[in-house]
């Protein structure tokens, strides 16, 4: 389909919808009425839907479902005036294992149950399945992983429960470490060489802005000159949030108007980054649900603009919240198709969530996790360690 064709098709859809919806709304009104009438005939005691033709009043018109809240006087104790914990006093990067340790043991029960049995039986497979599903690995990936292991147990390659657990772990580590790499921004070789742009994408609330701040901190620590582009022009005060990170980490920031064009902000940042000798531009973007086609289009445009000289897109990082369930796979797929994601940043892994969805993502898209967020402090972003991650799953 050529570009003008596409435009026309879209405009057809708009017109169809714009004209269709009022009609549809009216139609739906009629449908519901018809439905209500029918329900009134079939089930006269339908609790919430009162038929318009039934004359009698509802049985319990005002019975509140909740008790009136108790009106105690608030306990007016003197508020404890502690210093607000604005800056986490983490001077050194946390160790992956140390932070993950907090949440460990949640699934340990399954592992010990598997070990306690002398042999591999049906219950063993149930336990393993349950452990993986509870870690958000997902039904499909879990089935595939366990199917493979079943075959190896049948063939005698794997003996007892301990060997099975070891094989499972090493499978997962192998999956997760394929394509693993440490990311970094090289110093720019000269004023004529293009400036690296890192793009941060993801759905709302995964921690994109915070991740940009933390990476700025890390790259500043490596002596890079870092420019932040406040490409989230949608969320209220997102630019302000990024500016505070810039101040905190000693990076510069380019901001646009709230509600303005994010591509323009990124364009300005690339121009300035190139002209003023910055090594890297970290471009924040607004959170967007991957099923909103127009917002995904906007993101593609941002990427095109960033990739135009004097800029070059060095990384496109998908920021993924570790609490995300199976929807994470859909996110990874759509964003990868749209803007060619180069790696995943898994945030909020210091909580109870396991982030097992990255296994499914790695298996189906081959997208590696490159960084992990372990807290709110500037230094709480570390390189991904597949082994530690898998250990923490169990």
């Amino acid at each position: 389909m050529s570009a003008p064709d596409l435009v026309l098709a879209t405009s057809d859809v708009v017109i169809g919808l714009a004209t269709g919806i009022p009609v549809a709304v009216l139609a739906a009104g009629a449908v519901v009425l018809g439905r209500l009438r029918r329900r009134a005939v079939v089930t006269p005691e339908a609790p919430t839907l009162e038929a318009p033709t039934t004359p009698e009043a509802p049985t319990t018109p005002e019975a509140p479902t909740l008790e009136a809240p108790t009106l105690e006087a608030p306990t007016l104790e003197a508020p404890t005036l502690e210093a607000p914990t604005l800056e986490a006093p983490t001077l050194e990067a946390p160790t992956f294992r140390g932070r993950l340790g907090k949440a460990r043991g949640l699934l340990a029960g399954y592992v010990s149950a598997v070990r306690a049995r002398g042999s591999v039986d049906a219950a063993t497979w149930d336990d393993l399945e349950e452990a993986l599903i509870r870690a958000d690995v997902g039904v499909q990936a879990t089935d595939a992983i366990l199917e493979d292991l079943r075959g190896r147990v049948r063939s005698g390659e794997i003996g007892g429960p301990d060997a099975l657990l070891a094989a499972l772990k090493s499978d997962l580590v192998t999956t997760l470490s394929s394509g693993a790499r440490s990311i970094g921004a090289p110093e720019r070789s000269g004023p004529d060489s293009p400036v690296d742009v890192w793009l941060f994408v993801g759905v709302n609330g995964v921690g994109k802005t915070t991740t940009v701040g933390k990476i700025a901190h890390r790259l500043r620590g490596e002596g890079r000159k870092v420019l932040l582009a406040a490409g989230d022009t949608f969320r209220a005060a997102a630019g302000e949030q990024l500016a505070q990170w810039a101040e905190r980490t000693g990076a510069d920031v380019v901001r646009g108007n709230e509600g303005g064009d994010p591509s323009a902000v990124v364009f300005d940042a690339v121009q300035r980054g190139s002209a003023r000798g910055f090594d890297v531009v970290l471009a924040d973007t607004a959170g967007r649900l991957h099923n909103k086609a127009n917002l995904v289009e906007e993101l593609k445009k941002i990427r095109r603009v960033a990739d135009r000289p004097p800029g070059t897109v060095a990384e496109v990082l998908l920021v993924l919240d570790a609490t995300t369930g199976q929807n994470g796979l859909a996110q990874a797929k759509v964003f990868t198709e749209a803007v060619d994601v180069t790696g995943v940043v898994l945030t909020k892994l210091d909580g109870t969530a396991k982030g097992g969805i990255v296994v499914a993502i790695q298996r189906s898209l081959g997208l590696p996790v490159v960084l992990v967020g372990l807290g709110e402090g500037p230094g709480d972003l570390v390189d991904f360690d597949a082994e530690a991650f898998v250990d923490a799953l169990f």
Partner: protein
Amino acid sequence: MFESLTDRFEGILSRLRNRGRLGPEDIDEVLREIRTALLEADVELGVVRGFVEAVRERCLGLELSHSLSPGQQVVKVVNEELVRILGGESLRITYAGRPPTVVVLAGLQGSGKTTTAAKLARWFKQQGRNPLLVAADLQRPAAVEQLRVLGEQVGVSVFSQPTDPVSVALAGLEEARRLGRDVLVVDTAGRLSIDAELMDEVRRIAQAISPHYTFLVIDAMTGQDAVATAEAFHETLALDGVVLTKLDGDARGGAALSVKEVVGRPIAFASTGEKLDDFDLFHPDRMADRILGMGDVLSLIEQAERSFDEGVASKGAAALLEGRFTLEDFLEQLQQVKKMGSMSGVLSMLPGVSKDVKRASSMVDDRQVGQVEAIIRSMTPYERRDPSIVDGSRRVRIARGSGTTTADVNALLKQFREMQKLMKGFGKGGMAGALGGLGGLLGRGPKPSPEALAQLAGMAGSPLETGGLGGMGGFDGDGGRHSATPSRPSPRSKGSKGGKKGKGGGRVTPKAR
């Protein structure tokens, strides 16, 4: 990409619908599929087990019914169980006898607390209350600033001070009393359920201001961890309910089921979009309907009631009936629909609209709708009433005036002509014809499945066919009486007022991107 819960159930159940009898092995197959579907929808494993067992027991005990096929009976059982888990009925806010009614929002980082706070304040305002927002998130940089901006957009003032969260909450309460505000909405910082220090802080906030309602804000995309998180917050705060956010994504929202089942508190509100009015009470029965692919007709009607101007709606209906629906009427209807929220949001609530159409509709953003509007606004009143007079030079003028191309203008006029034809069908042929036409209207877009349409037409039943659009009178007039939420004090009068406010609110909400 795997299918959504709705699609999945539709697949299984459509097979069942045509089955005459249902053996135990059929039930097993269905339950296996349901288990997988629920797990892929992120329903917590334990909850899935309970659900599957409950459905199995009821299915085995099913007695043959004369009116329902076995497949339909399973649908009914699954639906009822879903509704049961999702909460049975919606939460009703009871206001404190001695104001202000205090509401505290808590949750993990990034679940959407700050946005929810603003949306909730807007909702209270719509209920005729006078809320005050308190920004007690002093942790995340610029969180206070974010709430201030949002507060300004919804017209609710925001209180904060750079001390510590407990003092801010307490001072906020004092401020609300001083200003005579009757609702206090407190936004708190995001925190992990295992962060003992921060959990203690939120406990102290709750102790200091004794909230009447404490809501956990939870992301619809959350996986298996939703339950652990909800349990931990419930233990610390004694939750009254849950606010489910980001329901406009394609996540299947199994977290809602899990949390409700495990914590035993209702999903009170749901947030379904980025606009500040994409927010309402959560209706479990409707959510289950949606999961089963029946569309969320009831929500739509209620939303329509609230934002539709009665006069405009009935004028439009009359014009439709008489086959003299002009571009001017269309423009008016378009304004009405816009007030109800985003196009795709409205569309997703309609039953029988296939997912292809929904997908196509997600390509539509309000800017594109604006383009259609611009084209019509660039026409003279004569042209709007009789588009056939638009010739070459008028077309060029309209295109220039609206910043579009003549091709766009042509496309609009062509679509409109087709719609007018459809309108005539609407008057004559009844529902089935009209809805079939709606599919056709989407032009090159995919059409709703004929099955769904037939089903719809069947649902409408005879009252419509005999009464024709006379039924619309009921939709306009009686709508409020059989509204499924008794929580709104006086649906009709408040409703239309809310609509007008909504229009004003539309202007200050952030621009659609």
